[in-house]
């Protein structure tokens, strides 16, 4: 899949080449499964049998907490692996930093996001994007991330945040109101009859909550596009700068159609959805400056050839 998709991306009349192999992915996955996941799964499962549900739940919480920085480490490792297996005119890419460092950054920023009830999420995104972009090398050329203005990002995020929180509150209030109305209107009902009446009134709640879903999708699309614009504007490759022409509506349309493609087919066509997303991002990308001059001036970069076991295990996007 990657081989096919990479070769469809053309830069300066030169297609990208993916040189990774299935064996590498399989071995990486197996190593992570045995060395990392198996002990954790054994701990939770055997612990549950020996010490009961309380232990299992506590262990699960701790394991989940450990998985947050691990997911960051996995994302970084996956990116490094894919860049190292991506060739352009025989030059590969990679990451110059430490996956552990990124995992640590990912972990503690996640804590702050949690403590702020999600308000610090845009800051976290920008922090992580900056770290990734500053340590990325493409075809021997390092990228540089210049701190972008955050103007417009929090505004759009606030809309998204309010849409999500509002919908959840509406759901809870709606449930409570329906339950209260059942008890108020028909006080002498048995549990079964009350349940049946509750179910009959439930569609009213869905009629109010379901229209919020497109709002959430639009809000998410608006935030994502804004983030994409900031990220591309802040990234440069030598003197070359980038921009994106993606719009909120176009991205929202892509999101909705991809959701339908993925879930109607029970994820069987998920690769198609991912390919559409890649096509969208690539086609909306604009390059300002002489890319060929920048690339010709660069020298090959000797980077580590990382593994993608952790990335494969965490299924860090399909690619």
């Amino acid at each position, binding site marked *: 899949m990657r*081989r*096919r998709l*990479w*070769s469809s991306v053309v830069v300066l009349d*030169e*297609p*990208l*080449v*993916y*040189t990774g*192999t*299935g*064996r590498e992915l*399989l071995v990486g996955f197996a190593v992570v*499964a045995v060395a990392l*996941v*198996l002990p954790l*799964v*054994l701990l*939770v*499962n055997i*612990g*549950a*049998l*020996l*010490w*009961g*549900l309380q*232990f*299992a*739940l506590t*262990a*699960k919480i701790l*394991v989940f907490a450990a998985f947050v920085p691990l997911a960051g480490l996995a994302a970084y490792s996956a990116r490094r692996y894919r860049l*190292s297996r991506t*060739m*352009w*005119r*025989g*030059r*590969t890419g990679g990451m110059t930093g430490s996956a552990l460092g990124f995992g640590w950054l990912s972990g503690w920023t996640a804590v702050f996001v949690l403590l702020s009830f999600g308000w610090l999420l845009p800051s976290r995104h920008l922090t992580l994007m900056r770290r990734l972009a500053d340590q990325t090398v493409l*075809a*021997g050329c390092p990228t540089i991330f210049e701190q972008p203005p955050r103007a417009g990002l929090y505004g759009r995020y606030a809309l998204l945040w309010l849409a999500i929180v509002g919908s959840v509150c509406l759901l809870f209030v709606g449930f409570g109101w329906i339950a209260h109305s059942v008890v108020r209107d028909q006080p002498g009902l048995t549990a079964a009859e009350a349940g049946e009446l509750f179910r009959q009134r439930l569609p009213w709640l869905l009629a109010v909550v379901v229209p919020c879903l497109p709002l959430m999708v639009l809000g998410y699309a608006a935030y994502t596009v804004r983030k994409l614009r900031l990220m591309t504007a802040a990234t440069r490759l030598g003197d070359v700068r980038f921009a994106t022409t993606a719009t909120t509506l176009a991205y929202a349309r892509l999101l909705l159609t991809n959701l339908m493609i993925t879930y109607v087919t029970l994820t069987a066509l998920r690769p198609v959805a991912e390919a559409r997303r890649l096509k969208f991002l690539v086609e909306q990308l604009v390059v300002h400056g002489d890319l*060929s001059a920048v*690339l*010709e001036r*660069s020298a*090959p*970069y*000797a*980077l*580590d*050839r990382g593994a993608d076991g952790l990335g494969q*295990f*965490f*299924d860090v996007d399909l690619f």
Partner: protein
Amino acid sequence: MDLDSSSTSISSDHVHWRPALFADGEMAGPRLSAMAIAHRDGLHIATDDGRIRLVWPYEVLAISRPLRQQPDRYVLYPTPTDRRSTPTLLIDDARLIEDLGRRFPRLREQSGDRDRLGLAALALVTLGFLGFVFTFTPINVSKLTAEAVPDQVWERVGNNLRERMVEQMGRRCNAPRGAAALAQMTGKLTAGLDDGGRFDVWVVDWPVVNAFALPGRRIIATRGLLTAARAPSHVAGVLAHEIGHGLLRHPESHLMRTFWSSLLVQIVSGGSGGENLLNAGASLLHLRYSRDAEREADARALPILRAAAVPAAALTGVLELAAADEVLRASSAAAGGLLSTHPSTRERIAAVERAPRYPTEPILSTRAFEDLQRICQPGAP
């Protein structure tokens, strides 16, 4: 591999060099014009300026995407690739593509991973072999691993599972006289066991007619069973059968089987953890043992009943009652009921009828049996 005088012989073979673009990977500038030819020993490449001439054997050749008949651009490169830079050849000439496809058909498949099919075949063969071994040979991995676990561990597991089941099914019944009667019955049934191991039997306030064996020699009997029984031997028969399962470690084997398959699913899916296994253990509630396991438990139960002077017919007593009584049958056939987990087969009844006769005596007095049947009544003495 550099070209030698064999290049002259190539020309004389009347095969033609085709245009291509070469990059050595060191310089990221425009590619160099080159000519390439798919010869029998590999892909020959020569740049127009004559500085670079080499041969890439087909065995090391990789391609950016599978070769197709329709015109397209392909990037060819030798493997393994280098960390820094790798020479590549960009081709889009239809004749060269055709020649390559003919000389090295593998380029038409997903190339770059020569061992992919081999790995897949090896994995299939291994799985098939393991499946054959575990299905058709006496090797029972679950049973082997169950026996390797110490008894104390199984007792703890059984306690946790029992608590989980009681949470789901209902409260434990423990009226003093009923509990004493139960202990008396259990004691008589297990008195003749060689290993001296104890069985811990609980009664749970659940209307379904059944009993369950848990790991660690824990047994749960339901209020429904006690109520349905017309004689203490009916209860004794069911308990003896469950004791048979316990002695043969059927609950432990089942749990190990569930454990391994759950583990595999969790590893592959990165999914949820222990409470699913606890719930899976609680699925012993709905466990339907294989016919072999039922046969083994019956065979193990018969000497237990004989040692306790309980008639062998007690083994199937409740099942026959359920078959005859419509209300009882409905209750027994409900989810988790006796009939749903212990199908009454003619074979089981026939085996019981073949058992030799021996002297029998009531395992409980009438008074004690009544106390046992009232074990779940609130306020019962």
